């Protein structure tokens, strides 16, 4: 194999780590897009919001776990703002989320007081796990992987509960849900809050693993989350909630590995700045593939 055309071990585990961080985004996007049928672009703002809140609080001396918790609350609040615009004021869901996203750009700058905050040498959620013999590029994906599994199980159990069923019915058939006594407005508030809290947690972990929070880090979050959801669906098919959620996580990891491969292959002549183009192409392919397969069968 030619030099440089192969993924190094560090780059590979780096991709897995990033995939696991964005698995939180994928789970959030799944809740909004698939469960509630709410195309929510708020995530482009709530991801950097989670990062910003965490970075600022950790630099101010707060415990990293508490900082991540507060980041999740901030994310939930952002989701609720979008839900209010849509439910109370009847603004089209997509537009409502764009308004919140745009507003969050300014909010994030206010939170940090500058475009980015460094977290070098600060105590993060991961700090206690470093220096016990395992190399850092293994510790990071391992730690985040455990958190992802906890989140996945929580979301799964929620969606299979009475309360979760009400949320799924709201997205699938709101009229029926109301006739069954479900307060569909409340379900949208709750779903958007949960979704954006998960996304903000992703941002909080991103800031802690990469050592900085940046106001521009949210650009394209929605596309990456959606890519993960769609890749998962394409690979595992529609076989119930648990499989769909596992698909989100798997899709997110595979997406990062695919990107890493594409960028590290000299043959294609791609560079880091081509990331957005590669992402768009990947998502498009993932969207078209199931359609082609169905067309072929017919």
């Amino acid at each position, binding site marked *: 194999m030619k030099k440089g055309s192969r993924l190094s071990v560090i780059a590979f585990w780096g991709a897995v780590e990033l995939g696991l961080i964005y698995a939180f985004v994928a789970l959030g996007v799944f809740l909004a897009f698939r469960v509630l049928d709410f195309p929510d672009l708020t995530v482009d703002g709530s991801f950097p919001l989670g990062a910003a809140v965490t970075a600022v609080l950790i630099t101010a001396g707060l415990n990293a776990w508490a900082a991540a918790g507060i980041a999740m609350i901030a994310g939930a609040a952002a989701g609720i703002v979008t839900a209010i615009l849509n439910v109370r004021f009847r603004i089209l869901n997509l537009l409502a989320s764009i308004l919140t996203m745009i507003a969050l750009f300014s909010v994030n700058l206010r939170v940090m007081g500058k475009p980015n905050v460094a977290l070098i040498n600060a105590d993060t959620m991961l700090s206690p796990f470093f220096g016990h013999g395992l190399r850092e590029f293994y510790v990071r994906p391992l730690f985040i992987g455990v958190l992802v599994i906890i989140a996945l199980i929580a979301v799964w*159990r*929620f969606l*299979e*509960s*009475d*309360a*979760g*069923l*009400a949320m*799924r*019915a709201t997205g*699938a*058939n709101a*009229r*029926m*849900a*109301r*006739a*069954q*006594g*479900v*307060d*569909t407005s409340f379900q949208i508030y709750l779903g958007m809050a949960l979704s954006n809290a998960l996304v903000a947690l992703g941002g909080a972990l991103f800031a802690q693993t990469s050592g900085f929070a940046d106001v521009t880090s949210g650009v394209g979050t929605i596309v990456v989350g959606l890519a993960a959801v769609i890749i998962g669906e394409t690979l595992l098919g529609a076989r119930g909630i648990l499989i769909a959620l596992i698909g989100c996580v798997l899709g997110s990891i595979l997406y990062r590995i695919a990107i890493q491969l594409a960028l590290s292959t000299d043959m294609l002549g791609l560079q880091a700045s081509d990331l957005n183009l590669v992402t768009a192409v990947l998502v498009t392919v993932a969207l078209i593939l199931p359609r082609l397969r169905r067309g072929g069968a017919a």
Partner: protein
Amino acid sequence: MIAVEDIKVVFGRGTPLEKQALKRVSLTIEQGSFVTVIGSNGAGKSTLLGVLAGDVLPTEGKVTIGTRDVTRLATAGRAGMVARVFQDPLTGSCGALSIEENLALAARRGEKRGLASALGPSRRSVFRERIAELNLGLENRMKDRMDLLSGGQRQAVSLVMATLSGSDVLLLDEHTAALDPGMAEFIMKLTQKIVSERKLTTLMVTHSMRQALDYGHRTVMLHGGEIVLDVTGDSRKTLSVEDLIGMFRKMRGETLDDDALLIG
């Protein structure tokens, strides 16, 4: 008991398209009584049903279910007291959820929904039993998505869903209109059985005059947002489908004359 008193419903008030869908309608249905409602398109049948279900909040008047004044209560708020089967089989159940998930959703109608698993073993066996009573073989397909079922099967499951929680008012909105004649008859028999077994207070809107006279204790005809016929007991027994059609013709004739006047 269901009661509407002096209900007036105006759509698009203050606009050129203002329409008075119901004009001072009063109707009391006693506990355990089964009332059928007929009327031509635009007579106000669906509006009346919407007023009872909570989809339409009346402009004037009062709505009572049981002993409770529900006039200002929206659909979800009164769902615990009212079960409903829609005309379109796709509306009454959730196609993306499985049969058992749909049942679980209906079992908690009007109650708090917590974080406990929606489908525990005991609930599953109750649901299975209730679906087996339909004799449609659906008890072996409990995990199938609802949208894999035929329209008739979905309406049958919807009827079971309507009886899973404690409400004793049943609203049927032309619930056999989208079905083939055989399936429509099956659903009507099932409806009859459920209503009499559970002593449900029932209001059924129908397009079929045959159904309107064959089922229930009382028939109400709406026209132009008003009750124009209300028959029960012996006078209803002697009423034939032809009589009803005659009345319909007469009503329509009147509106035709009105139109003729306008055009002339």
